[in-house]
């Protein structure tokens, strides 16, 4: 198994996940973060740390979100590792509230 970043990640960049990841398996592009499934050790630390509930274990994803497994694998291979938290994007808090978090 692995953990997977999904749609809620887009547009906030809280990156709390990066701080708690023990193995630096988060990657980043302009849109969102991705988990490298080859390095993730399934510790489960990132899922509760995410302020917008964007991270789930792969087996728990709803059918219409399963495609994120492939997206994470592919994008993690194409993007750089992020090893420290970044400042959230403008409007991140509003986005979090809009998501009901």
């Amino acid at each position, binding site marked *: 198994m692995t953990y997977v970043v999904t749609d809620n990640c887009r547009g906030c960049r809280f990156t709390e996940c990066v701080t708690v990841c023990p193995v630096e398996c988060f990657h980043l592009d302009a849109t969102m973060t991705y988990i490298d499934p080859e390095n993730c050790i399934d510790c489960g630390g990132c899922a509760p740390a995410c302020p917008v*509930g964007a991270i789930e274990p792969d087996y728990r994803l709803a059918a219409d979100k399963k495609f994120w497994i492939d997206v994470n694998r592919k994008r993690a291979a194409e993007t750089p590792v992020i090893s420290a938290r970044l400042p959230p994007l403008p409007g991140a808090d509003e986005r979090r509230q809009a998501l009901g978090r």
Partner: protein
Amino acid sequence: MTGPDRVASDFRVAVVGSGPSGFYVTEALFRSGATVAVDMFERLPVPFGLVRFGVAPDHPKLKQVTVTFDRIATAPRFRFVGNVAVGRDVTVDELRHSYDAVVLATGADVSRSLDIPGQSLPGSHHAGDFVAWYNGHPDCRELRFDLGHEAAVIVGHGNVALDVARILAKTADELRQTDIANHALEVLAESRIREIHVVGRGQPAQAKFSAKELRDFLDLRACDASIGEGLPPDEPDRDNPNDPELAEKLALLGAFSRHAATKPRRCHFRFGLSPLAIQGRGCVEAMSFTSESGAVQDIPCGLVFSSIGRRTSPLAGVPYDEHRGVHANIEGRVANGHSVVDGLYACGWSKRGPSGTIGTNRGCGIATAEAVIADLHTRRRPPAGDPDALLTRISNRVPHLVSYGDWAAIDAAEKRRGAALGKPREKFVMVPDMLAAIGA
């Protein structure tokens, strides 16, 4: 002490403990922008704390975190000082005299006691001791666990309780190819335990174990999970969109309650029962609980494992927070009441208590490292002594200081021993054997 040549450093820091929090505070110090050298002190000749001695042998993926620790340890300003117990071989005050800062990352190694009648009867154990025993901790090598009973009770609803239940529930064949200590595998292979009760005070929604750990109980070869009779779990709350973790836990427990048991062993999850007493004449025969209605319920058993939390061992020269069971600290700065102790810090479980996942200690280490560096820049307290001179003095007290290179030799020897048995490693479980592997 052999080690890499010293590189000029602005600050020299001693980190006490080599578990996850010790490594993560070290990483954060190295990334702080300041030029910091770290000497990491470890009581045993082997590093990694609870990753080696806590993480269950059948969770090998989690142990891959040691790759990260190895990477941190390759920094030129890092030295591992193994086989040196702070508090016994060197005092905290000596460290404070020789280093710019001392960070305590000593974990939470003392199991909390149930404090009920019968708790010291033979057959009543701390879950933490059992975990350390099957993981080959030298301190627990000589412990004896009599698994010749039909039933065991595990008190507590955290992940350690589930680890103990799962190890008891698995067959020897399910454990044989893990890095479980051989002495434990031999005892577990002869286990007669058929009924495992995992008992907690709270209701399912309050249980602290994670859904992922609970899921492991779905596919055990010889054990069915069930819900203790008379206490059906809360109806799964279908309106839990913001807590998929809780929703999954409740769904799993619901599945356990509907599942027809067919396998030889059974693991019962029981809720709403508070420990009252352990009964028995000369050894454990049953454990009594009070239900929420006040009724007393006895569970016959020959073994009790209490898993109700841990606290940090106090260290001489370090103020202790009795209430929280940690080194007294204000956000990582060790403090006596409101007064901060200069140059002394805590991180990980010895700072905030035993909670979170491995990575929680990364954020915690970053926060403590920020405090260390901020203080060093603003009110540096020049150390009276020199770390290298201190290490020379320590080497006169301890015959064999263990370097990270020495650990690599132990590691390689353990992997060789394991390969012969089809296991990832066979740990050395006694300190002299660890030292022998490095030719010390």
